[in-house]
């Protein structure tokens, strides 16, 4: 996942070299790779990710993209030392716009660069309509261990408002096919709070998702991002703006039905069957680990330095073709900023935060519970996580 809006920052040096401080301790923390695939067959009205349809690519193509990723890997190898990768996550866009062979070629390139640990978690996102039993089998054989399908909803009208191309039954079906292809770890993504979605619609979506036997569900409230087609429709009054109280009710429904189906929350928007089913790559983000983000617009973090690549695939390939880092901007976090991040990320997790140094009295009663020296959000607190973070930090 790569946002459309890039933060401000200082420029990345042309050779992409990191300050020494960032590399101190590298290797003792987890190390992941994110790979961004910026292609989509069509753009969904709510989406503000960095992705392009064929007509928007300005001459960039998949072959050029694959070459550029390999070029970025060569550059990266010169910047962070050899250290086998713990997790890989291929996101988009629509990663399955690449063939299984192309996706596997990129895994090989990562392996050739840093190596991949034996029990690595290797995830790709996929659209339900763009996978087949054969392609799923090829992905599994090529080394992928986990698949994340964008189901969004089991309601046809909701899928239509979201501009999704698949039919309501396709995502659970694809999940079942993935399991049959050998994936033990399958995630379904859901979106709630879409204008026109009823409580029953969302209950149905939850039931269809858990009914497919997946070991992981992510559920997100719909966010109307500036500049999207959805935002324009809301502005024109064609669609109602999502309502926070409705979203709260949906969240409670998700918690109730997912828990009943044996999936437990481990992050505000993520539920998993057990420890092994949790997405280790995302946990690495939330626990302040290191990762290299490959591809146009991808974000990276190593040792308190965050940087992000140029967004357009053509520009990205050009920069690498000139032997330059595709990094557009970066920020070297201060101790204070790292502290803020550790709280805003750590609080989202079921494992919570150590209470040492936290002024819990600033938080409204009923939002946090303390156990074994750690503070964790209550169910009500999960819905108020940002307010709790603000109260803890200000």
């Amino acid at each position, binding site marked *: 996942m790569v946002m459309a809006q890039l933060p401000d920052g200082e420029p990345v040096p042309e050779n992409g070299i990191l300050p020494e401080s960032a590399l101190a301790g590298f290797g003792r923390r987890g190390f992941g790779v994110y790979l961004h695939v910026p292609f989509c067959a069509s753009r969904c009205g709510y989406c503000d990710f960095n992705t392009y349809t064929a007509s928007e690519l300005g001459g960039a193509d998949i072959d050029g993209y694959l070459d550029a990723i390999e070029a970025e890997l060569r550059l990266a190898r010169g910047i962070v030392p050899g250290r086998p990768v713990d997790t890989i996550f291929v996101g988009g866009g629509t990663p399955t716009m690449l063939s299984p062979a192309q996706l596997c070629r990129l895994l090989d390139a990562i392996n050739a660069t840093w190596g991949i640990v034996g029990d690595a978690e290797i995830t790709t996102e996929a659209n339900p309509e763009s996978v087949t039993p054969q392609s799923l089998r090829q992905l599994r054989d090529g080394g992928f261990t986990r698949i994340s399908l964008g189901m969004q909803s089991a309601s046809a009208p909701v899928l239509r408002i979201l501009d999704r191309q698949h039919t309501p039954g396709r995502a659970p079906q694809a999940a079942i096919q993935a399991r049959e292809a050998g994936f033990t770890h399958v995630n379904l993504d859901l979106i709630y709070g879409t204008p026109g979605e009823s409580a029953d619609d969302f209950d149905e979506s939850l039931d269809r998702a858990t009914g497919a036997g997946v070991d992981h569900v992510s559920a997100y409230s719909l966010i109307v991002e500036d500049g999207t087609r959805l935002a324009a429709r809301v502005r024109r009054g064609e669609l109602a703006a999502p309502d*926070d109280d409705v979203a709260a009710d949906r969240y409670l429904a998700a918690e109730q039905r997912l828990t009943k189906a044996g999936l437990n929350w481990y992050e505000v928007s993520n539920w998993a069957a057990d420890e092994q089913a949790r997405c280790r790559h995302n946990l690495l983000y939330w626990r302040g680990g290191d990762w290299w983000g490959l591809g146009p617009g991808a974000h990276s973090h190593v040792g308190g330095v*965050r940087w992000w690549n140029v967004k357009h695939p053509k520009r990205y390939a050009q920069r690498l073709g000139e032997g330059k880092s595709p990094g557009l901007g970066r920020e070297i976090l201060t101790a204070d900023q790292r502290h*803020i991040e550790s709280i805003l990320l750590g609080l989202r997790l079921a494992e919570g935060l150590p209470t040492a140094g936290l002024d819990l009295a600033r938080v409204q009663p009923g939002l946090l519970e303390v156990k074994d020296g750690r503070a964790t959000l209550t169910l009500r607190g999960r819905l*108020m*996580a*940002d307010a709790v*973070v*603000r109260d803890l930090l200000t």
Partner: protein
Amino acid sequence: MPPTFGSNQPGATEPAAIRNFCIIAHIDHGKSTLADRMLQLTGVVDPRLMRAQYLDRMDIERERGITIKSQAVRMPWTIQEGERTGEHAVLNMIDTPGHVDFTYEVSRSLAACEGAVLLVDAAQGIEAQTLANLYLAMENNLTVIPVLNKIDLPAAQPDKYAEELAHLIGCDPDDCIRVSGKTGLGVPYLLDEIVRQLPSPVGDASAPARAMIFDSVYDIYRGVVTYVRVIDGKIEARDRIKMMSTGAVHELLELGVISPEPVKSKAISVGEVGYLITGVKDVRQSRVGDTVTINSRPAKDALGGYKDPKPMVYSGLYPLDGSDYPDLREALDKLKLNDAALVYEPESSAALGFGFRCGFLGLLHLEIIRERLEREFNLELISTAPNVVYRVIMEDGSEVTVTNPSEYPTGKIGAVHEPTVRATVLTPNDFVGAVMELCQGRRGSLLGMDYLSADRVELRYTMPLGEIIFDFFDQLKSRTKGYASLDYEPSGEQEADLVKVDILLQGEAVDAFSAIVHKDKAYAYGTTIAAKLRELIPRQQFEVPIQAAIGSRVIARETIRAIRKDVLAKCYGGDISRKRKLLEKQKEGKKRMKMVGRVEVPQEAFIAALSTSESPDSKSKK
């Protein structure tokens, strides 16, 4: 320099040659443009230096088209045609403020004149304030010359309005002079008529000097410039002058006449109008209405009519940014130098922090001061809802003067007195019903009603001032499609059934929202403010009850429901920087929140809730 000839020598002008007059007109009826033409025709302004609205000095005046501070311009004129052709005269045109808050200043300007030009837009007819000033001029026995302006406009109806003016001042419609300030048509004839019709001043040239101050202006380079009309005797440049109200004696640094730039002279004498500079730095030391005499040979009695300016309307002014408080103090100190009517003292509000309780002559005065503070001193301000001054008599007989609702006593109250005004409304007769309904709704009692002409009506009411300062003018305009005009003057006080309504957030009174209102309106005020606040205050992490209460009795209640969701669903690798920056921004935003107990209230909510634009009346109509 103006051409100097014959008798036009300041200090040595024959009273018989002097004509002191003012122009009574409504805003935008063309007074400044007519004055411009007179400056040109009399030759006192070089044509190359002429600019529009020459006499309006302050930017705000020029932009808003209103004249706040009057000035006096000395112009020579020789009758050009008709009877007494060739007769030389010296005209002193004394400008008068054109708005309701400055009645006292107007009365002093009128007292400096023997005649008045009643200037009325031939397309609009007379307005209430003009009418009020006309009555004032007639009470002062001024000779009135009726003039219809803008006769070049296609919409002009000079015959109709000549009838109206003739009816009002008891003359023949043909006596109304028709001019166009814009083209200059008819203006020379008007100047001739001023010399022919207006009486010249009568005073005792050999008596001890007495001069009346009709204006006093602070100039950053020269200190206070005092405008006077000499009634008796003579003031010479080397004299030491004495203010008769205080006995203070000042050295004269300069005296002279304005023509229309200052012209120093050796003396100003009986019947003349001129300026004095003493080096004082505060207009309070040189007050409008006071009598100036000569220290070495003082007059025995002051001229009558002096009054201390009395604030009628109070409002709290608070800087949006608390750290601007010292700047606000400094700005008020500066404005005060030029405004004898402005009073203020520090106050603090639990909700708004440190600010000043300021007293004004009226709403326009408040608006002008506020605008000047914001524009000239770059301050961002919150002003609390304006209120009048109440006199509260306790059951034990003690008396409390309340200029701020928070001072309203809590003990046993015997009676409450509120100031009243005598209001005059002029309206086309189609709207008489609407105006009466409005005035009665504002506790007005009808004093009388007259037809000025077949379709224009004058309504006179006694009304509480407190009702007028609460968006009465806006309501009047909207109910009469903008046609009605309003004037009012203080007329004393009355006992009334008033209560203080408090607004409570989570049980805690917010001082800035307390108001003193009539018992019958308490409920409407309470529900309106509570409903407004429910819209304006963002949901908090807990439920916030909003109550309106009289004492401990709750009369209205609203609830801001607790927020249930405040979390961004997604937070992955690429979101982290954005999320952290958002948090940092929210931390800054929190600093701009005012805390009322545990409730965070954005400043915008205070500003919006305190604005009177959404009154109970306007709301109930929607």
